[in-house]
């Protein structure tokens, strides 16, 4: 049986980031296992939004660190061919008079305190940035220039390639069937292709994190929620220069960004369809849904009332009760470190999360404290609930 210094389960954008950071930190022999292929899970379906706007302050720190990596990806990986597919178009967020206004004001102030550049814009300035939208109802408009979107699949494969160059072994098509335990400690994993030994196992399994509950009895408070994303072909261009836009005024808390040419990628930010069994296969998107979202889009982007549906797809979030991840050791399972429950905002945190989980796994101090993200919080009640209530802008 082969022996490793660390085994990572799941080669999505989080797992491949963890693997890279483990190697970078000098971990020794690292093995990554994925049931399918690198990035073939929920990572490929990410809308790729990058921002540091969060109402939960700990997230801002992780997001800031992650942003600087995205902004400097090739250099960070030491691979000049690597690309994150970054479009740095900035992030615009607005709220009308109403319950979202004060939370927005506080979040923007919080970002400023953390040293993130945030501008409050008037309607004219917002219009200049995003001419295809109207801001008649906006009571507060925030803009962060250091934001945009990138390609999660490219990032996952970029981290994976860099990890391989540092000697990490990545095996695809391997399903972990159970954890191997000895004296109450994790000593390895058993898979459909044999057993692998390690005293340190890091699980980054996203919607499949329920496996941990199966293997250890420790509950995994994650639900798989499927969300639909639409690509609308408008009469006007949503160019790469125009910012990502979060509309706190819309009933669905829509977010949208350029999808190239005249196309807009748009999705709802709130509750999706809970799946009984974790599965990231494409789901049906009803015409009713398209018409509903289309109507909300048309409110903000009048010319898109005539838009055509160019394409659509679904992505699945691993949602926890407070829409924030569980990070760190599982106290009842020595040797196991977890990172799951990103609730639809994992990609933007993936470089930072990969670093801190790797540090934790190696017994090093973590650059960002993990205590707020502990699994324990669901028992103690210290939830990391965002000011906006449910939804992925936590």
């Amino acid at each position, binding site marked *: 049986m082969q022996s490793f210094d660390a085994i990572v389960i799941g080669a999505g954008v989080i797992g491949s980031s963890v693997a890279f950071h483990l190697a970078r930190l000098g971990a020794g022999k690292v093995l990554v296992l994925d049931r399918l292929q690198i990035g073939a899970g929920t990572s490929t379906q990410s809308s790729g939004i990058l921002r540091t706007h969060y109402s939960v302050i700990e997230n801002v720190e992780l997001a800031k660190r992650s942003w600087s990596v995205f902004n400097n990806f090739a250099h960070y990986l030491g691979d000049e061919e690597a690309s994150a597919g970054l479009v740095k178009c900035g992030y615009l967020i607005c709220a009308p008079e109403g319950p979202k206004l004060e939370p927005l004001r506080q979040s923007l102030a919080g970002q400023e305190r953390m040293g993130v550049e945030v501008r409050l814009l008037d309607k004219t300035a917002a219009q200049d940035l995003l001419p295809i939208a109207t801001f008649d109802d906006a009571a507060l408009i925030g803009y962060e220039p250091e934001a945009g979107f990138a390609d999660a699949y490219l990032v996952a494969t970029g981290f994976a390639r860099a990890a391989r160059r540092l000697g990490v072994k990545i095996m695809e098509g391997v399903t972990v069937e159970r954890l191997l335990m000895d004296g109450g400690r994790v000593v390895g994993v058993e898979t459909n292709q044999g057993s692998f030994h390690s005293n340190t196992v890091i699980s980054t399994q996203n919607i499949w994190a329920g496996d941990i509950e199966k293997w250890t009895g420790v509950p995994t408070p994650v639900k798989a929620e499927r969300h639909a994303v639409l690509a609308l*072909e408008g009469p006007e261009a949503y160019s790469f220069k125009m910012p990502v836009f979060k509309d706190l005024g819309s009933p669905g808390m829509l977010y949208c960004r350029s999808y190239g040419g005249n196309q807009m990628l748009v999705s709802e930010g709130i509750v999706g369809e809970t799946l009984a069994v974790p599965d990231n*296969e494409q789901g049906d998107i009803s*015409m009713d849904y*398209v*018409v509903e979202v289309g109507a909300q889009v048309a409110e903000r982007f009048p010319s898109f009332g005539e838009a055509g*549906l160019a394409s659509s797809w679904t992505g699945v979030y691993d949602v926890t009760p407070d829409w924030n991840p569980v990070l760190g050791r599982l106290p009842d399972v020595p040797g196991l470190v977890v990172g799951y429950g990103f609730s639809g905002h994992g990609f933007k945190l993936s470089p930072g999360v990969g670093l801190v989980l790797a540090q934790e796994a190696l017994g090093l101090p973590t650059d960002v404290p993990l205590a707020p993200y502990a699994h324990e919080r669901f028992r103690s009640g210290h939830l990391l609930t965002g000011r906006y209530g449910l939804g992925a802008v936590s």
Partner: protein
Amino acid sequence: MHVMVLVKRVVDHNVKVRVRSDGSGVDTSGLKMSINPFDEVAVEQAVRLRQAGQASRVTVVACGPAVTQDVLRLSLAMGADSAIQLDTGAGEPDGLMATEALAALVKREQVDLVLCGKQAIDDDLGDTVPMLAAWLDWPQAMSVNRIELSGTALRVDCDGDQGLERWSLTLPAVLGVDLRLCDPRAISLPNMMKAKKAPISTTRLEELAQAAAPRSSIVSCTTPPARAAGLRVPDLPQLLAHLRQVPALNPTA
């Protein structure tokens, strides 16, 4: 000229289907379904003919249970004028019976040209067009990638075995279209709203065709053995070394 388009609701082409663990068939419940991509092209072509004034009406027809109406609504949103669901109830009718019913519908609706995708991406049989043409005793053309219509003279380009074939057919005719015929439009949101409310008429399959036992049935399904991954060579010289040993590339060996 009245154009009828046959559309099928199939598992979306991006979805990986799985065989049931007991091997009894493919489980499509919960899988994303879409209009057969080849049929979507046929709808687009028909709507373009109407928009160019060469056709007066476009009717879309789908065979299946009530849920099939999804693809009919989509076709209406693309610009079809009316839609008919040939209701098959819960069962999967035999293709021969379905095409007999379609032929009756074609005659009842006084159709001059039937367009349909050349194959459905689920069964990959590609037999609907030829069977319908047989029932109607109409000329047919398959894998059509270009259509030229003038009066009752129809000229089509088809992918043949040796290359492109250009055929002229007299109407009425049945055509099986290829993806290259045209690009389906992105449906506009206003058209989607209209299609949501448009009526769809239903006719039961048994009313138009004689009940017949299925000619064949699927008894089991398996996943084909995966082709094993082979060897990765590190460089060109090694690639050459390996290829030189392949008999088919070494004619004098």
